[in-house]
């Protein structure tokens, strides 16, 4: 006991206390990252389809959560029953005591559809132009056999719709606009002719599309729920058929990666709650790249000026404090500035000067990827400035003096000696800036991010890079799907996966920056400040 009192008096208990605080912090980090990873990684793993007898009849679905009895509440089980078009909701809660006769039927199917989410049940028959081709088990085989061709057809339609038709539409619109401003009759006639030819092309495409659409619709599949309801959908409306209870381990892995690929490489469906997030990934990457191109020259020039050219005095110190502090200014303030200055002031002026024929529809006078990138470049400039300054200061004095002594001018010294020496530091700053830019959402919401962009900022139509277009973004996707979506419960897994992806990108960028900085410091011998 005496020992214990002494242990107390010496304050060791407080050491334990502060250790506890640190432990809590670390547990929180590990818990958060682990939680997101766990929730995100299992999203695409096929779950067993469980059939039970509930209070309202047979139920088939995936068990999504279980609540242990809590206080007066009995134990509850949440089923994802899908079939949104039939049941009106994706999820159902049952009291654990209410359900019985649990089984996992081998022939239960999970059918992923283009519309109305997943279907749980089985296939009753498949018909072509109203004539049945196959029923029951044979129908499943038939559907599986015909599905790849149908999906290919579907992809073809989408490609025409998005590519050629959109392209023609834009050309037609351009044509009409120039016609309005064109005064000479001859030019008008030429334009009219052009419009005619475009129109005929358009009609041709439309008939082609119609034919394809009819083809898609000829074969239809009748789906059967476990409680006996049927639903007829075209074969083209099916994305994938998963015999979830009949998959071996290899099949599950294959399915996992197939779904993962769809997530990464496909367009979103059903107001972003299904399908993939490719446009969001693409938009984020584009935005960060444009931002990087802007932020590096800005940051490096500023740092060079502060460290190499400006005379060290009160002014430079004050400016340095100010630039450092900009890093602490809330990002939403940058967003407000971006909206007021870039979008409305600069963009509005550009519209009036160069796009007046399109007004009042704004071209640059509304949010766009260029304004978002510029805003984020401004936001991340302090990061690059601070890192570059640090790196410039770390270039050994003797190297500079050697260069100068050989007769090199100041600029030659900077260009050939100082900047190469500082390159890793600048790169560190850039990577940190990229990581900050990738994770930032608030300023983007004001300057050009949208929940669903009709076209990518980079595509095959002239001039290829469309800086005025709005874009999608991973972070905003999380906010939008998680909080603005009508069906956020069903979209939760997607949000977890998106969050995991964003987290992965940001953490990876930071790890790289960390390593770079450590290497740099080791090379130059310790911290410079």
């Amino acid at each position, binding site marked *: 006991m005496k020992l214990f009192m002494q242990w107390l008096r010496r304050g060791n208990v407080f050491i*334990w206390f502060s250790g*506890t605080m*640190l432990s809590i912090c670390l547990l929180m980090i590990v818990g958060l990252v682990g939680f997101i990873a766990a929730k995100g990684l299992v999203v695409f793993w096929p779950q067993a389809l469980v059939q039970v007898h509930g209070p309202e009849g047979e139920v088939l679905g995936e068990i999504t959560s279980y609540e242990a009895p809590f206080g007066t509440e009995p134990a509850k089980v949440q089923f994802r029953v899908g079939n949104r078009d039939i049941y009106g909701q994706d999820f159902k809660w049952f009291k654990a005591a209410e359900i019985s006769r649990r089984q996992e039927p081998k022939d239960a199917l999970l059918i992923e559809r283009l519309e109305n989410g997943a279907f749980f049940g089985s296939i009753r028959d498949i018909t072509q132009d109203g004539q049945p081709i196959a029923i029951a088990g044979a129908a499943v085989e038939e559907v599986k056999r015909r599905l790849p061709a149908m999906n290919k057809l579907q992809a073809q339609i989408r490609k025409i719709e998005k590519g050629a038709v959109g392209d023609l539409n834009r050309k037609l619109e351009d044509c009409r606009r120039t016609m309005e401003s064109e005064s000479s009759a001859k030019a008008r006639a030429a334009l009219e002719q052009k419009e005619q030819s475009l129109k005929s092309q358009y009609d041709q495409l439309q008939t082609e599309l119609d034919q394809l659409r009819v083809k898609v619709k000829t074969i239809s599949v009748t789906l059967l729920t476990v409680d006996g309801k049927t639903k007829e959908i075209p074969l083209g409306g099916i994305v994938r058929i998963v015999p979830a209870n009949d998959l071996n381990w290899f099949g599950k892995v294959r399915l996992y990666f197939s779904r993962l690929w769809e997530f990464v490489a496909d367009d979103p469906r059903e107001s972003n709650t299904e399908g993939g997030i490719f446009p969001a990934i693409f938009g984020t990457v584009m935005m960060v790249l444009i931002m990087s191109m802007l932020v590096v020259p800005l940051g490096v020039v500023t740092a060079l000026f502060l460290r190499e050219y400006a005379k060290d005095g009160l002014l430079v110190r004050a400016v340095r404090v100010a630039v450092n*502090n900009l890093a602490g200014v809330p990002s939403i*303030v940058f967003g*407000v500035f971006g909206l007021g200055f870039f979008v409305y002031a600069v963009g509005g002026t550009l519209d009036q000067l160069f796009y007046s024929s399109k007004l009042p529809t704004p071209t640059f006078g509304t949010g766009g990827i260029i304004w978002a990138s510029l805003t984020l470049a401004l936001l991340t400039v302090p990061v690059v400035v601070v890192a570059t300054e640090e790196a410039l200061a770390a270039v050994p004095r003797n190297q500079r003096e050697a260069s100068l002594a050989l007769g090199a001018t100041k600029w030659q010294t900077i260009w050939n000696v100082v900047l190469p020496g500082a390159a890793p530091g600048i790169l560190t700053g850039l990577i940190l800036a990229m990581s900050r830019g990738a*994770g930032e959402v*608030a300023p983007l*919401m004001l300057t050009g991010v949208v929940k669903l962009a009709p076209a990518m900022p980079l595509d095959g139509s002239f001039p290829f890079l469309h800086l005025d277009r709005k874009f999608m973004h991973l972070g905003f996707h999380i906010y939008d799907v998680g909080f603005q979506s009508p069906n956020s419960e069903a979209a939760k897994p997607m949000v977890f996966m998106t969050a995991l992806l964003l987290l992965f990108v940001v953490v990876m960028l930071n790890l790289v920056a960390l390593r770079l900085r450590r290497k740099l410091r080791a090379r130059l011998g310790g911290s410079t400040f």
Partner: protein
Amino acid sequence: MTHPNQENQESHRVQKRARLVDRLMAGVISVGGLTIIAAVLGMMVFIAKEALPLFKPPSSAALSAFKLPPSQGLLLDESGKAAVLVSPREGLHVHRLPDGHLLSTSTDGPKRPWLSHTPLQPRGELLVQGEDGKLTAGALKWAKPSGENNPANWTLEPNWQGSVPVLGAIQKLLSFRLTEGTGLGGGRTLRVVASTSSGLAWLEASLDETQPIALKLVPLPSGLNATCAIWNLDARALYVGTQEGAILDFKMEGEPELLTRSEFGEPISSLGFTIGGTSLLVGGAKGKLAAYQQVRVNEVFQLQPFHAFPALDGEVLGFTYGLRDKRFLAWTSTQVVVDHLTTERRLFSVMVDQATQATIAPRGDLILVGTTDGRVRSWSLSAPHADVSQKSLWGKVHYEGYEKPDFVWQSTGGTDDFEPKFGMMPLIFGTLKGTLYAMLFALPLAIFAALYTSQFASLNLRNTIKPAVEIMAALPSVVLGFLAGLVLAPLFEKIAVELLLFPFATLFCMLLLIPFWSRLPQKWRTIWGDGREVIWVAPLLILGLFVAYQTGPWFERAFLGGSYRAWLQSAHGITFDQRNSLVVGFAMGFAVIPIIFTISEDALNSVPKSLTSASLACGASPWQTAWRVVLPTASPGIFSAVMVGLGRAIGETMIVLMATGNTPVMDWSPFNGMRTLAANIAVEIPEAPLHGSLYRVLFLAALLLFAFTFVLNTIAELVRQRLRKRFETF
């Protein structure tokens, strides 16, 4: 072999070029650097510039005066380019402004000369008693011939509808309303109040009435003489002003029934409304001006004054209002003013001679005043942000429909006559509340963790902890917000009691285990203990969480009656929102912990070894050294860490946006939400019309955030620099 001279020339050229490039780059970088810095700092200037017009005093300018035929009614059309005149002899005619050119005259309609007519309402409604004694209502509307873009060729159609014969002599028509019928008949109902030789009278008639309708007297209390009267918007109530200074409120469903009587203080000469018809404007014979509204007192609605305006210099002769905001015009025979209801600002005031008419354009930017000599004078008025004043931004304002002055933020409503409420206080309050809860959570964790890391942790541990925490700093706030809003908030709702028990449960577990620890041989303790406590504590924490989870329901049953939410509601009257301040505090705390930790740890770490060695050599224990020597020495650094953390918490947007309900309430309760300045900007600015009041107010909010964080960060930076300098001397 090149000639030496050539070589010399060559090297000379190279040198010259190098020097030129050098000078050029020096210039480019200096100019570039300065421009970038100026641009970055110009941000604040730009934001301020956008917010500043809010506080620009309203400006007005006299426009040309012109002559118009004598008239008894005046109205400006929507565009402010035409004026409508009412004259009993010639009916309605329209003049182009500013030259007074006659555009069109309505020739049909009630038989002229008209015996009496009401003033023209701001939307162009008018009731006329023709020579034949019939009452005819009209509503002016521009008729635009198809394809005709020249307003000179447009005509103003009065749309005369119905005419109701009247029994009894009318001296003056005071007010009328046309209401859509509600019954099966469906016809429109005309309600009129007029002064007659025997007193104030009213009638109610269907528009297609052919039989003469008799005027009925309004039953005024004895001794009161009515001077003016006005129907409310749905014609269910009639407000009467009297010579004796009383405002009477009659319920007009069925027979008139006097509900309440309010005293004004001087003879009432004029009654009017602002847009929306909620606020009753009352003008006195001596120039007193006030606004009244119905307020519920003891379950009864009662007219109460809620805005007072500077007095005019004579008897108030009339009111009219703009259709864009809550501004109204009041005039006497010598003075014309425009005031704004919400802010009580006087936007416009002018002295005139012998005014007979005055009106304000629907957009509120043009004022016409007719005088007895037949001249019409006009003024332009520019007050785009009349609905904002210093007082309405920072103080309590009595809004329409509120029982008392209050801090309110509600920027948009569903209707045109909505009164915007730009009170910043609820937002500032929300910001401070969120920050407070975040700091309460983050400070102890971050500072003690930093202390431990810098003073007690083993080197290996420290080298892994620091990068881990740095990565925690880079976590996108949208991910934190998403977890807080969609995972933590519902979870917290379920296990709030368990979470609150968690620290105690952990402490309990520790107290149970510490005696065992202190009994371990010294050797074991040094090998496993020093510098690795954090590892041993982790399982204890998980154990504590488990114990808390197990005892929580029991605790809730034993002390809180089974459900803590019901207990909060019944015992303390606290409502529980799922997305509440505790959730935000946790998530935002999570976001600021790494910042506070990193800066504090740097500061603690930079305390010179000589100090700690001296302390330890004097026999102080490691904790005593850390607490009494290291912490005080590094306190400026920790202070700056707290400042930077505060700055981050104040400006955090996504977490608050996602983890609170974003309701702008002013309540310290940890169990409900708030709306912060930053989240408010994110929510509202996408829909704010460019350069409107809301847009500028949001810029003001951004400026506030900017200034706030800039000051905090500057203080932090200065303190940190001073600290660095101090340690350099060691």
